[in-house]
């Protein structure tokens, strides 16, 4: 990579120097020094246009080859499969159009580069042509819009009655996250920031019995294949709960409760062992090892080895530590999930423990 960079830099500077020297040469024989493009300029610049579109194609290919590992792995949520499908279709469409239009634009620039004796064609209008290229985008976009809207409605249709969804509150504050599980009754107790006091850091209404069995955690554990409805609440300012592996994101807004729902379909374990992730983590650890070497040489601590876990990150600018506002997500089997949940204390227990102190 560094080698590539160096080559790019050298090449660009080379081109600059070459052009600079040409300028000097050209400015010396100033027979035709009008600063208006002449046939020689047109010829050279036209060819450069052709070279440029080739550069653009190569850049595209390079990025896809080199960066295909950047794309997120297969979706870990159910609706994410439709999402990825729609994304793929849109991407293919975009690149076809990009390939053709950039090609035409730069090829015409090259092909019709000016010459003194040439005559341009006076071609001001053509209704048929214009109709065609109006109607094609109309049809294509209509298809995309309809497809997109169906998927959107499916994702956003959050029904608490249907099936047996798990209800979890995501609570955001500068600069961390908390999850509140609704307990046995699967109903979240009432809460408001005005109730925040002492260990009641999420502002639960102590008089609301639904809240007594709620469990507050700083990791998000989800059972696989069960729909989860997130109710999001912010303590201070705007945050955004972004869970890229689940194709899920929703802003967390003070003063209102926002919602998002999805069904996780791949456990953390399955994702960790997928071919994509094994390779990706290996690459990352290689990078980290090399970095550690430098760190150790400089007398600092080495970096830890990375194992993959799902994460949730804040994706709405929220202050100085915005870049490190994250929470670990664990997707596991129903049994593991139940076992973990049992180990967490309820809000009621916390309160009485404090009272007895």
């Amino acid at each position, binding site marked *: *990579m560094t080698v590539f960079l160096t080559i790019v*830099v050298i090449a*660009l500077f080379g081109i*600059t120097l070459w052009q600079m020297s*040409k*300028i000097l040469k050209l*400015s010396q024989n100033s027979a035709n*020094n*009008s600063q*208006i*493009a002449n046939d020689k300029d047109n010829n050279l*610049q036209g060819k450069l246009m052709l070279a440029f579109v080739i550069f*653009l194609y190569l850049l595209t290919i390079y*990025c896809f080859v080199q*960066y295909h590992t*950047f794309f*997120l792995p297969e979706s870990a949520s159910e609706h994410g499969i439709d999402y990825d499908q*729609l994304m793929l279709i*849109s991407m293919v*469409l975009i690149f076809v159009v990009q390939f053709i239009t*950039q090609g035409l634009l*730069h090829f*015409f620039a090259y092909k019709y580069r000016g*010459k003194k004796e040439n*005559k*341009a*064609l*006076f071609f*001001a*209008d*053509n209704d048929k042509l*214009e109709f065609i290229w*109006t109607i094609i985008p*109309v049809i294509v*976009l209509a298809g*995309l819009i309809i497809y*997109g*809207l169906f998927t*959107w*409605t499916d994702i*956003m249709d959050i029904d608490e009655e249907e099936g047996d969804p798990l209800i979890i509150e995501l609570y955001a*504050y*500068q600069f961390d996250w908390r999850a509140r599980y609704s307990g046995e009754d699967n109903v979240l107790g009432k809460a408001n*920031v005005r109730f925040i006091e002492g260990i009641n850091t999420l502002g639960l209404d102590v008089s609301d019995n639904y809240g007594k069995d709620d469990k507050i955690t700083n990791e998000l554990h989800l059972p696989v294949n069960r729909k989860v409805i997130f109710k999001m609440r912010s*303590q*201070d*300012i*705007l945050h955004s709960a*972004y869970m890229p592996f689940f194709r899920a994101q929703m802003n967390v807004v*003070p*003063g209102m409760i926002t919602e998002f729902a999805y069904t996780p379909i791949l456990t953390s374990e399955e994702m960790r062992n997928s071919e994509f992730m094994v390779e990706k983590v290996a*690459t*990352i650890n290689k*990078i980290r090892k090399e970095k550690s070497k430098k760190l150790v040489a400089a007398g600092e601590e080495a*970096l830890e080895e990375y194992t993959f876990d799902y994460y949730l990150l804040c*994706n709405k*600018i929220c202050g*100085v530590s915005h*870049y*490190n506002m994250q929470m670990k997500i664990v997707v596991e089997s129903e049994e593991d999930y139940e076992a973990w949940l049992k180990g967490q204390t309820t809000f009621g227990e916390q309160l009485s423990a404090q009272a007895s102190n």
Partner: protein
Amino acid sequence: MSATQGDNHDHDHDDHGHHKETFITKYIFSQDHKMISKQYLITGIIMGIIGIAMSLLFRMQLAWPDHQFTIYEVLLGKFGEDGIMDPSIYLALVTIHGTIMVFFVLTAGLSGTFSNLLIPLQIGARDMASGFLNMVSYWLFFLSSIIMVLSLFAEAGPASAGWTIYPPLSALPQAIGGSGTGMTLWLVSMAIFIASSLLGSLNYVVTVINLRTKGMSMTRLPLTIWAFFVTAIIGIVSFPVLLSAALLLIMDRSFGTSFYLSDIYIQGEVLHNQGGSPVLFEHLFWFLGHPEVYIVLLPALGITSEIIATNARKPIFGYRAMVASILAIAFLSTIVWGHHMFISGMNPFLGSVFTFTTLLIAIPSAVKSFNYITTLWKGNLQFNPAMLFSIGLVSTFITGGLTGIILGDSTLDINVHDTYFVVAHFHLVMGISALYGLFAGVYHWFPKMYGKMMNKNLGYVHFWVTAIGAYGVFFPMHFVGMAGLPRRYYTNSNFPYFDDLTDTNVLITVFALITAAAQLVFLYNFISSIFYGKKAVQNPWQSNTLEWTTPVEHIHGNWPGEIPSVFRWPYDYSKTNENGEYVIAGQDYAPQTIPLQDGEEEMHH
């Protein structure tokens, strides 16, 4: 129209050559649109230098997060101690970079410069409808620029809530230092900026409607004027909404109201605010914010339409479709703002509506792109630097516009929202494209502004390094965004998952540094050409529009004698009679002031 003509004539007698100009009235408090346009351009360029320099600083931070750079300490003072950038100043740099580039460079610097220069010259008017208001407009802009620059020196740092200044972050100094004095100055500066922009826009609209010369019907207007005219209208419709958003925010900050604030517990304290909603601010902000994209872009598209036609020696293809597209884009731009808010917590049904309107905007945009490409077809292309930048604009407009199809789709937006994918998208489609429009305009009308020619070879170097650099910066950035990397992160090192993106971030920063260096070539060319450039001839690009019928030396009132009348549309390039000869023998263009020749038919374009 004859009445207008008469009025102009009177004006001619009153004003022309009768008053002495002092240094102050000529260069500082000038009411002459040509001087005001130069003032806009130079102020815009200076703001541009600041804005781009900021982007280099935070790009360096992103590429080499654990490296210490003395330059941070030199430029950022206490926020860059020991060469380590403070996270709060990182956010401030991002915020002010966005604000300066969008408003001060691309709105005022681009539209302000060229609307002022070209509207009177291309429609055949002695000056703007109100020279005085025009002067006030510039000086308000200047004042707002000064305040924005001063805000950089606020004790707790400049505004740092992102250029969209979403409350509560922007409303609460407890949440981030920059939301104190820095944000107050930001709001004051923007309020003045809006006043400036409104005065300017009203003037443009009135001038275009009332002061067209004899024969200059709306369908004979150059596309530049159409673009400036419609841009001014969108500005008038949407900027006041930003002002009201800002006023309510000022009240929330200073007078204890709760328009945007509710249920907040911060720094161990519950705030009294109740019942407000940040989503309201988002609606108000984007009601301006989205049309703003087109306020930035349409003038650039107008400029390139004119330049591509002139340099292709061909009429612009589909003049009426181009005008219709400008109008359609302008109309749609005011009803798509919600696509910035798909996941803001607003009703998902609204999301569906905004997806629909947003994707519709792709249609007029596609028509424009195809028309540009067809204009090149079978042309006799003259690759002046302005032409290169115009073609470059079409290229980045297509690349950046296409990814809009993904972001405009509410479903797909979920996972790329606020990632680097968005950053790449809007920089290409509005940032780079509009900058190319600005450069194209400067190269093309420099002879008109300063009576000198810019060096074309330096122009070529400037273009090619910029073109390669801009794609080098923003094309890989899409892929970084697809990895789910959020924007506005001070460093990505807290997520080991992003470790493999480091090299790409370095690559992007290197391209950014090279591209910025290429802009120095432009600056050198610009400044040295003003003083030492080759003297320009009256119509260097052999163009049809009216500005090239004025003398090279600037005079107050533009034309020494009577205002020229117009007999044809501005795009009669390479028009031939039936026998295949040019309508005017020996020249491939027919300026608007030339009456129809014997046997020539006027096109019903």
